[in-house]
């Protein structure tokens, strides 16, 4: 009886017989379906409108990259110059060093953001005492949730060679620390290490979750076979989280041109521009500080296109290697 009250579109095959007559009437079926789906379309209106304006609307502005843009003339009144802005950009003496800096910093971060959390998760996983484990986690997750504004302020003070806490702790040992934020050699390294400091704890959460899903009986049988702790880690634990490691590595690839704007913009200075300037800070200085709108947009567009290729490649690989899909 109840089955007959079912609407056509969620009918199972059995119901098709009960609703045969109506199902045959495809016009009515389509109208019912449209009616049933209408509220879903209505729910999507606000998001479609806002995303349409702010994400898609802004894409029209990319046109500036192909113009000799004059703000008073606007997007429609400025002269189109083809790829001239890109030519100017690629022949700028600072452009390729900036790409090199960006890739160096981003790649180092990508690698360490996998390696350090994995090692940390493995070590933490060896701890049996839950209370101890929890307190360690509480401390190491915290930096992830704080902004680079706050953290940059803290690091600038902390790493100051004259008055920072690091220098004060090291001086009794006779160690003179370098000027981490004001030295061309140390600056990119400091960026990588402080970024790993901020993120490794939180990054380990996903590996800890993967570790708990390893079947404990595997360890038992390994112990019976006489495998020590190290052998167990090598042959059970690591293969157990292998797919998660591959997935996170592959997804990280999408960040190839993300040097970390928030971090570097708040910690760099003119002294370290040679090694510390990245694409995003370059786009910002060009666009906001020097008002070179066309060049800045061109540089931003270049970044978006390269990133897009890497994102597509990384999602493709994630799907192939781990069966991962974002939707």
């Amino acid at each position, binding site marked *: 009886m*109840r089955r007959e009250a*079912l609407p056509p*579109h969620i009918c199972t095959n059995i119901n098709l017989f009960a609703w045969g007559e109506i199902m045959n009437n495809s016009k009515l079926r389509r109208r019912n*379906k449209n009616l049933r*789906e209408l509220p*879903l379309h209505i*729910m*999507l209106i*606000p*998001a*479609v409108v*806002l*995303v349409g304006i*702010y*994400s898609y*609307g*802004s*894409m*029209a502005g*990319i046109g500036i990259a192909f113009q000799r843009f004059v703000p008073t003339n606007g*997007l429609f009144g400025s002269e189109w110059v083809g790829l001239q802005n890109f030519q100017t950009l690629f022949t700028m003496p600072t452009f390729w060093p900036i790409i090199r800096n960006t890739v160096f910093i981003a790649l180092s971060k990508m690698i360490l953001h996998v390696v350090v959390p994995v090692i940390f998760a493995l*070590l*933490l996983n*060896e*701890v049996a005492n839950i209370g101890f484990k929890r307190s*360690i986690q509480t*401390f*190491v997750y*915290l930096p992830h*949730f*704080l*902004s680079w*504004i*706050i953290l940059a*302020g*803290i690091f600038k*003070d902390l790493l100051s060679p004259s*008055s920072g*806490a690091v220098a*004060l*702790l090291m001086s009794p040992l006779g160690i003179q620390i370098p000027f981490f934020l004001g030295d061309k050699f140390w600056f990119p390294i400091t960026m990588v290490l402080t970024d790993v*400091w901020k993120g490794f704890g*939180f990054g380990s*959460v*996903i590996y800890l*979750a993967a570790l708990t899903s390893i079947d404990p009986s595997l360890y038992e049988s390994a112990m019976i076979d006489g495998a020590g*702790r190290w052998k167990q880690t090598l042959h059970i634990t690591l293969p157990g989280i292998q797919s998660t490691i591959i997935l996170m590595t592959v997804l990280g690839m999408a960040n190839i041109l993300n040097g970390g*704007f*928030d971090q570097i913009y*708040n910690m760099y200075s003119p002294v370290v521009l040679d090694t510390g300037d990245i694409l995003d800070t370059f786009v*910002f200085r060009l*666009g906001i500080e020097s008002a070179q709108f066309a060049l*800045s*947009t061109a540089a*931003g567009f270049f970044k*978006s296109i390269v990133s*897009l290729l890497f994102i597509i490649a990384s999602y493709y690989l994630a799907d192939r290697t781990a*069966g991962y899909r*974002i*939707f």
Partner: protein
Amino acid sequence: MNMQTSVSRKIFMAFNCILLVGTALICILPFINQLAVSFSHKNAVAANQVIFWPIGFNLSAYDFILKGDAFMRALWVSIQRVAIGVPVNLLLIILTAYPLSKSKENFRFRSIYSWFFVVTILFSAGLIPTYMIVRFTGLIDSIWALVLPGALPVFSMLVVMNYMRSLPPELEEAAYVDGASHVRTLVYIILPVSTPTLATVTLFSFVAHWNSWFDGQIYMNRIQNYPLQSYLQTMVINVEAFFRNSTNVSADIARYIELVSARTSAAAQMFLAMIPILIIYPFLQKYFATGLVLGSVKG
């Protein structure tokens, strides 16, 4: 042999514990240092005496900041931003995730809409075009400039959508049999069982709104409209200028100059801006594991 392994195991465990405690200390000591600086007398700080324990303990730095208009005004902007931004985010996440969680049979336009949103995480127009559209829609110097451009956090929406998709389809079918509309199904069936995920994305949205500074800096022309993080970004320079220029000032301010320096007040401001995150931190810890795992892995 058993004895041997247990000895080497003990050595490893001791070493491991020391390493983990060391790691935890590296994460937390920078904050202890800043806290100590903020509570110390400015002369002790200038003489490099303060590391992890305040010297010449006083609260003047906090007093100085909390009495200052600029900090409180920026705090108020940030509170407004969170109060408007987080509910807007949550509403749009729910309204988008629910239709997109439908199967293709039940919502034929699902993939078109999904791609429409996903494209925005694959490709962004960049700084200047985004600025131009915000300007074009007249949001410069308005609180809505900090809310509307990011009104739908697509990643969070995908997390919620994937969660809704993982719910047993019988839930909805039962509701539908009973004649419930989509709105009723969403409000009375789907939302109550989705609370853990919704809590996660709400917390993430809170953190994102509280921490963002760049949009405030570029979309606000007047510094009075800066939210707290944008204000903090520029403040170090301002505070230094304040202390440099304070040669002849009222007795009230002179009292502070006695005890407070640019460094101690900067540390105090930093710590004050951390407080909201510290308050919600226990909840964050409870929920964030759910939010991390975006997407679905086919079994």
